[in-house]
């Protein structure tokens, strides 16, 4: 019978007391660890997806919402912006802007967002294709690694997108199937859970008006253009469509009462057209996109400091710098997280005090048995060790249960996030703070047991057995 086994037997001899200590300790440890894991993964996800973006430009509304939507794809867009307004920022010769990535949102496939954009999106996220090729025509799509995994899609598969940012079968654009031509290798960025395609695809599945083709493929595009004429667009002004979920943007003229499932779009749109060139994109002034991700040529150029301010003051657009907005978000999140962590710490202290009271009280009832251990030759240090071990084992048990609880809750939470936003959190990652929490748990257990252990150590056998 080792001292550890004896300490263990003593602990489990009082199951209700054990349960109380475990619940308190596990709750505090679990809450603390869960918050650390969540905060860490959230910040890492956000940082991964910063992608060197210096500025996001979109429709007037909330800057945070626009950034969450355009960069993290977890919120609805603030609205759409006209190409006429967006045009200056897509100009490759802009003195301050190195790269602009236009984004057109509004559709999804089984909950995975479809983003109309340009080939540069892969460079933005430092991603590479694992299979296939990039799109060369509209209605061709490249899917993220996670989309391919989750939906079992492969090159050559065709699917119908659905209107809106969340899955809804009755909003399917069943007139225009998208064909998968490429799969992006996992990059750990938001690109993993996106379906990217040409901007023209997004316009085509919504818009039945001709999209000007500035150069090349005249005959084919004329044909495609012609084939759209005479379509029945009853009650659906596609030139000013309001994507579902743009509920924060007041587009009074955006009629959204239509039912896409019942549109008589005909088959004309299913004919792919060559992908848009930047010149064609700029030329399509009557069209809309959702937002633009911008990288500056020189971040330290003082003129970049006033760019966002000027856009916000003098245009119909909203410009927001992700690092600044995200820092504000982290601050707000951090405040809440810190409050909860403080609460968890308080619970841990209360739990430690409860262990202390329990051990201290038990000394009264156990003083004879402890004295008899001394009589049979146990040294004072052995009794000190026994009581300390009981405190430490209790804390360790609480730690194990708490960490298990944190992983369980995180697993469920990650599953919910994944189901809702297709945003992946890894519930199996070991957060480095776990060792500090372990050390802290052992420390609390030891501290809680310290005074009772000293009492046991300094026990006067004669005095105890005489009374």
């Amino acid at each position, binding site marked *: 019978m080792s001292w550890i086994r004896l300490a263990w037997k003593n602990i489990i001899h009082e199951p209700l007391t054990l349960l109380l200590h475990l619940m308190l300790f596990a709750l505090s440890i679990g809450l603390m660890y869960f918050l650390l894991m969540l905060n860490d993964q959230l910040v890492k996800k956000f940082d991964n997806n910063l992608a060197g973006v210096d500025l996001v430009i979109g429709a007037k509304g909330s800057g945070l919402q626009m950034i969450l939507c355009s960069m993290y794809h977890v919120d609805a867009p603030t609205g759409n912006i006209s190409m006429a307004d967006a045009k200056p920022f897509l100009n490759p010769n802009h003195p301050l802007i190195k790269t602009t990535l236009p984004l057109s949102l509004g559709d999804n496939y089984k909950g995975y967002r479809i983003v109309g954009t340009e080939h540069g999106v892969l460079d933005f996220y430092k991603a590479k294709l694992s299979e296939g090729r990039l799109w060369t025509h509209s209605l061709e799509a490249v899917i993220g690694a996670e989309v391919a995994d989750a939906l079992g899609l492969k090159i050559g598969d065709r699917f119908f997108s659905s209107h809106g940012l969340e899955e809804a079968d009755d909003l399917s654009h069943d007139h225009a199937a998208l064909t998968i031509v490429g799969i992006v290798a996992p990059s750990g960025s938001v690109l993993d859970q996106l379906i990217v395609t040409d901007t023209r695809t997004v316009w085509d599945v919504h818009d039945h008006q001709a999209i000007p083709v500035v150069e090349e493929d005249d005959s084919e595009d004329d044909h495609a253009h012609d084939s759209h004429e005479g379509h029945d667009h009853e009650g659906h002004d596609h030139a000013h469509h309001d994507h579902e979920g743009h509920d924060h943007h007041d587009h009074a003229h955006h009629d959204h009462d239509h039912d896409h499932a019942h549109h008589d779009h005909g088959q004309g749109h299913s004919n792919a057209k060559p992908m848009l060139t930047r010149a064609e994109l700029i030329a399509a002034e009557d069209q809309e996109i959702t937002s633009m991700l911008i990288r500056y040529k020189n971040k330290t150029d003082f003129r970049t400091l006033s760019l966002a301010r000027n856009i916000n003051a003098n245009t119909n657009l909203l410009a927001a710098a992700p690092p600044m907005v995200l820092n504000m978000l982290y601050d707000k999140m951090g405040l809440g997280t810190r409050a909860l962590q403080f609460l968890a710490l308080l619970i841990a202290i209360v739990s430690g005090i409860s262990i202390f009271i329990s051990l201290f009280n038990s000394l009264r009832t156990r003083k*004879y048995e402890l004295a008899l251990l001394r009589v049979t030759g146990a040294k004072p240090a052995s009794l000190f060790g026994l009581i300390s071990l009981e405190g430490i084992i209790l804390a360790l048990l609480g730690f194990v249960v708490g960490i298990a609880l944190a992983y369980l809750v995180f697993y469920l939470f990650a599953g919910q996030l994944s189901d809702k936003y297709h945003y992946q959190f890894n519930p199996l990652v070991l957060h480095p703070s776990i060792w500090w929490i372990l050390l802290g748990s052992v420390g609390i257990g030891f501290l809680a047991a310290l005074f009772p252990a000293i009492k046991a150590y300094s026990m006067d056998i004669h005095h105890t057995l*005489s009374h």
Partner: protein
Amino acid sequence: MIQTNNLSHTFSDQVRITFPDFSVGQKESLLILGESGAGKTTLLHILGGMLKPTDGAVHLMNENIYSFSSRKLDSFRGDHIGMVFQQAHFIPSISAIENIRLAQRIGSKKVDNQAINNLFDRLNIGHRKEALPSEMSQGERQRLAIARAFINTPSLVLADELTSALDDTNCASVIALLKEQSEQMGTSLIMVTHDQRLKEYFSNSIILKNWNA
């Protein structure tokens, strides 16, 4: 085997008790009788190495036990002195046999299950080995306490008011068990009590005078 010389103890309130000298050889027994307050328990604790006397010496196996360091005294007590108390206290969370194994382990001896089983059988509690102390009767617990006192084959066993709460039959039975174990193991046995019935079981006895009187 055990010998005392000029033992006395002064309490914090300056009350001083002086004890008579005596010696008990191997396989011998001694009854120390005294009224309440005569210093029986104090003497027992001095003999057991739990209370250092103000004056005098206790020699056990030709060693003055109070010349040892406290650490060595703890080990010596575990190896050479067994004690039985009126109230038998055990670790409540472990079984009867585990309590005895623990005593053997603390006494720096290897756990000898054969010896433990033999002792349990001799004390007629072999069938209660796996019971928790709380599940045992008063008599069984007392025999378990005797087993714990003898498990490390001590040179000296000290018994404190062991029979005070027992009827005549059980009293005789417990004394018989103690004496039998002492003789089998070659142990010296010292019993302190105020129970006058025990005089008939012990050929050697001393009476402590009440220092309050």
